[in-house]
């Protein structure tokens, strides 16, 4: 019998609704797991046990009183520490905001709360969500639960480590260049970056106005579907948020991929890929074929343009956001962050505007050529075997460490420029025992199709059910 902390989100929520288990029992299981693993993985920045226990007791009392409850009633959750919750810390993983306590609550956490969930911790993250590895000078590096000297992926490092370790049933991450998909891949969990504008960003720490996305990391596509159904949709507090209707993502999980064309790029995404990653990708494609998908090898257009443009947008926007602190408190940033921000100030405005102005035309041309032939794209999430924290430590490593650091996110960034939905799901392990991720991307607002493919894959595999060695047996 599985431990309560190892249940999936939907399983846990359904068990509470049936009154098979109490919210208090789930919370205590999560807290016990946290106490067992956190000295190794360092997944949290703060934990609020008292307020969480009160919320759990209230959830149990509501059920006992026969009240109508939401789809996440009584579920304890922990999120990347950049989601504003009135009266609670929100460090953004930084020394600069170590004492910041917002007076508003972000839309997405409010929506989860409206569905009955409650938060019990703020999770470790890259400083201001700006590295792909999980290094953090202010609160300590986050460690991979599968093999602690290795990176967790970032920037939602604590989210990946905590979901994998059974500390939380789901976690909100953010994704500007891969920050949901990278820790999902590295930690062996499932995450989805929705279409740009799909989910409100009101009350969420900004990094890049044009490329920031909010999305879940969970243990399965079904769990992602539950969270996305609750958080997606128009928000009067976020004028950039789409009015596109939100489908029932869980209803789309039929397991049927018959006739679905899945494209595998031949000219990008595998250029620096290593053999174990390629083998895992090819094995995953066979599983998808077994579900009825048709695999199509194809060349992707415009990759040089996408590569050029994606390099400037978030960098220029982050530089602008951080300019005052870079003038006054540069030493309070980690070296890798202030170093990256610094170059952003030299990007010409004309380059930045060109990258933004070309985004629509490039998306239209890309979609016409690619999605005229296939429904989805499949690639490795991270093309290489995972590096260690030491190998990617810009702050203390030799010159040249930057290249290894930046290579981690080479396969995720293009979909941020294009604004396309993209998920990562575990599909194997590398020789060091670290998870390998399968990235599935689709048309704008095709989250249901993306999740259907991942769910179908997970019906025939058990990579997503495996638990890391750090979890007590």
């Amino acid at each position, binding site marked *: 019998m599985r431990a309560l902390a190892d249940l999936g989100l939907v399983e846990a929520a359904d068990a509470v609704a049936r009154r098979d288990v109490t919210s208090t029992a789930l919370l205590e299981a999560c807290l016990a797991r946290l106490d067992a693993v956190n000295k190794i993985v360092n997944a949290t920045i703060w934990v609020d046990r008292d307020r969480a226990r009160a919320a759990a007791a209230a959830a149990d009392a509501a059920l006992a009183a026969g009240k109508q409850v939401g789809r996440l009633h009584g579920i304890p959750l922990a999120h990347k520490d950049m989601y504003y919750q009135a009266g609670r810390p929100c460090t953004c993983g930084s020394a600069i905001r170590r004492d910041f306590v917002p007076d508003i609550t972000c839309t997405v956490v409010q929506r989860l709360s409206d569905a009955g969930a409650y938060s019990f911790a703020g999770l470790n993250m890259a400083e201001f969500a700006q590295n792909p590895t999980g290094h953090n000078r202010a609160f300590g590096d986050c460690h991979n639960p599968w093999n602690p000297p290795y990176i967790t992926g970032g920037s939602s490092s604590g989210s990946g480590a905590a979901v994998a370790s059974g500390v939380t049933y789901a976690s909100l991450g953010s994704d500007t260049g891969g920050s949901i998909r990278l820790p999902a891949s590295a930690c062996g969990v499932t995450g989805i970056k929705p279409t740009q504008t799909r989910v409100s960003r009101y009350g969420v720490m900004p990094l890049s106005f044009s490329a920031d996305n909010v999305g879940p990391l969970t243990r399965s596509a079904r769990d992602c579907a539950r969270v996305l159904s609750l958080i997606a949709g128009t928000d009067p507090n976020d004028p950039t948020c789409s009015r596109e209707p939100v489908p029932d993502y869980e209803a789309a999980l039929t397991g049927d991929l018959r006739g679905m064309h899945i494209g595998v790029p031949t000219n990008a995404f595998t250029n620096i890929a290593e053999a174990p990653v390629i083998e895992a990708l090819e094995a995953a494609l066979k599983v998808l074929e077994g579900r009825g998908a048709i695999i199509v090898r194809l060349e992707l257009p415009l990759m040089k343009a996408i590569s050029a443009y994606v390099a400037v947008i978030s960098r220029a926007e982050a530089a602008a956001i951080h300019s005052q602190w870079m003038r006054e408190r540069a030493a309070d940033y980690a070296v890798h962050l202030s170093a*990256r921000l610094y170059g952003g*100030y030299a990007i010409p405005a004309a380059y930045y505007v060109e990258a933004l*102005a070309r985004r*629509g035309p490039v998306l*239209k041309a890309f979609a016409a050529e690619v999605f005229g032939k296939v429904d989805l794209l499949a690639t490795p999430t991270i093309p290489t075997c995972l590096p260690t924290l030491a190998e990617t430590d810009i702050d203390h490593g030799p010159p040249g460490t930057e290249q290894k650091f930046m290579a981690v996110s080479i396969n995720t960034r293009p979909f941020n420029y294009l604004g396309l939905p993209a998920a990562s799901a575990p599909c194997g392990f590398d020789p060091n025992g670290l998870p390998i991720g399968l990235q599935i991307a689709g048309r704008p607002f095709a989250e249901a199709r993306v999740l259907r493919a991942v769910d179908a894959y997970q019906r025939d595999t058990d990579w997503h059910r495996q638990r890391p060695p750090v979890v007590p047996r």
Partner: protein
Amino acid sequence: MDFLATTEAAIAAWHGITPPNDAARRLATDLASTVAAFEAVRGSLRFEDEPSSFEAALQECKE
């Protein structure tokens, strides 16, 4: 003036920010690759292109 010196001078003049560390200088030097990448796509921008077309493109390209 070489690329790094020019870059440092521009950042200091336009933003009042100096290199915080050696890694910042190395990454600033790497901006030359950004210039090269833009050189490779010169001529792509059309006179009528503008950023607001992106949201319209998301709608136009959806399922």
